[in-house]
């Protein structure tokens, strides 16, 4: 636990930092779209809300554990691991489902191989870094296609910005990219989409329904600031509802804060990006099920017995989401059916 943050006038912390893995990531659209509600919270509690961004989800989580952020918007598995090892944490609202990635292959394979992943056997496979969701989802897809992963040529390209050039220069044949890179690669004519892990209908049979990212709170925070916690969840749920049904990318951009709009100036690319991302929201209403828990943790490298521990049991907390729909008076949206591999 970190230092006790200074208190604002209403007894809430003077600053609420929401650590996220990456700034203005489209996958976190519900969070960004909640800006008006967040502003209200700032008003109500006399606090400021900030969004320190980190290159990796782990670092965002680390920041929260180190006490420099109150809340973390991070991936389910990472947070669970920390919850088992350190402070008790709670995953209070889900923001997206699926791995948040898109497999893109080099254009030269398009006519010959199409979306047949098995055809890439023996080629070079790219992902961001070892152990990341990008690697895991790529491996799942490959293995699902009957490929022996251990004999493949795999390359961690390091950063997202390396995907397009790596694909273009022929250093990799197929790569599991973040949506922004995927959109860029396709827009540039460098690659074509092979698999969108956000799309449950495609990825469900491969990896099940993965719990992507969500808000994670230390239990201490929940206990100290129950009302504030609820309001944060309410805001995200509102944001989720706001973006879920938007199909027109321009309309979506209009919902976003100025920073986001600036970062997504290229509208055709963003249109693709949005098309890739939206399914991730269609399959969630903010809550998470036990089946999803099992699907997600199956790839998480957990020790035996760890997942049946009481700490793990307390990690998933849907109560705030349920409460949110009540408080907000919103109908629960229809969620795509769960699918298991």
């Amino acid at each position, binding site marked *: 636990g970190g230092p006790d943050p200074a208190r604002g006038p209403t007894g809430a912390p003077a600053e609420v930092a929401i650590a996220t893995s990456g700034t203005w990531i489209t996958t976190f659209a519900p969070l960004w779209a909640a800006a008006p509600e967040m502003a209200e919270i700032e008003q109500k509690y006399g606090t400021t809300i900030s969004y320190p961004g980190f290159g990796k989800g782990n670092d965002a989580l680390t*920041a929260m554990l*180190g006490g420099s952020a109150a809340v973390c918007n991070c991936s389910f598995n990472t947070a669970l691991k920390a919850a088992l090892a350190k402070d008790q944490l709670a995953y209070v609202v889900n923001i997206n489902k699926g791995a948040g990635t898109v497999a893109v292959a080099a254009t030269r394979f398009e006519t010959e191989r199409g979306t047949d992943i098995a055809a890439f056997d023996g080629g070079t496979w790219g992902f961001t870094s070892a152990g990341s969701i990008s690697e895991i989802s790529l491996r799942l897809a490959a293995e699902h296609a009957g490929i022996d992963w251990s004999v493949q040529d795999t390359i961690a390209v390091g950063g997202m*910005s390396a995907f397009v050039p790596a694909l*273009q220069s022929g250093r990799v044949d197929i790569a599991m990219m973040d949506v922004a890179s995927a959109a860029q690669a396709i827009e540039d004519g460098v690659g074509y989409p092979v698999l969108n892990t956000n799309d449950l209908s495609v990825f469900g049979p491969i990896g099940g329904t993965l719990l992507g990212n969500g808000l994670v709170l230390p239990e201490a925070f929940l206990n100290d600031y129950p009302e504030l916690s609820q309001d944060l969840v309410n805001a995200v749920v509102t944001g989720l509802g706001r973006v879920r049904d938007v199909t027109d990318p321009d309309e979506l951009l209009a919902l976003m804060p100025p920073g986001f709009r600036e970062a997504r100036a290229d509208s055709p690319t963003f249109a693709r990006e949005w098309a890739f991302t939206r399914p991730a929201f269609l399959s969630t209403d903010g809550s998470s099920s036990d089946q999803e828990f099992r699907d997600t943790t199956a790839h998480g490298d957990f020790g035996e017995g760890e997942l049946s521990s009481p700490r793990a049991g307390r990690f998933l907390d849907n109560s705030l989401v349920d409460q949110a729909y009540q408080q907000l008076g919103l109908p629960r949206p229809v969620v795509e059916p769960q699918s298991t591999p």
Partner: protein
Amino acid sequence: MSTDLSPRPVTDPSGGPADRSADRRRARRRTTVAVVSTQLTLLAVLLGGWALLARDDVWINLVGSPAGVVDQLAEWFADSAFWLDVGLTGLEAALGYGLGVLIAVILVAVIVPLPFLDRFLAPFIAMANALPKIVLAPLFILWLGFSITSKVLFVAAGIFFLIFYGVYSGVRSIDHVLLDNARVLGATRGRIVLDVYLPSIVGWLISSLRLSSAWALTAAVVSEYLGSNSGIGYRIALAQQTLDPSAVIAGIVTVAVLAVLVDQLLVLVERRYTQWRVF
């Protein structure tokens, strides 16, 4: 911006009669013109090469284009938030730099009069030197949060060794007769440091200070890059996430230019303290 670290263009130390010194001045001016024109030619070649490279599809995604970088910089320059970020990065680098230099100098001051301590600590210092600080960056965040403290410490850890080994070698190369003489003349330890050690190691000190000033900025940027929501490092990280190579390069260029400016400042300091030299 002449940034020569090596011997200054060693001109005749003695002026000479008027006609000769005029001659020399003219010759010096001629070399300066040659230097500057060579530099400009080189710059043109590099920029040209870059512009050519940027016409290639692969490369433009990697290195952006000169025009893109200039646009980006122009946009940033007009934005006050950019200057705040520059200030923040500069502050982190400066604090970390100060801290690192302080600790290094103190450590040398403690170690040199106590050879057993020197031998005792040597392997630990070597190990700490080799420890990849970049791995520690996330741990610093875990232990200290993403506050400015963690960045300052990260910077200090990054440059400490440059200064330490630099000053240490400088001390080793001191002429013993000077030390002996000062001691016999009655200099206290403090005076010996001021009168003998410092002036003798000025060359070493400045050269390590100049090297490490750049590293301090790099370290600040890397730590921002790895976790922060402000500073130039964050701008670079953001640009990478939003796949904007020109902005990445613009960020890197900003840092490098900052480093060159700091370096120039140190050159001035160096001139001031090495006047007595023969050169």
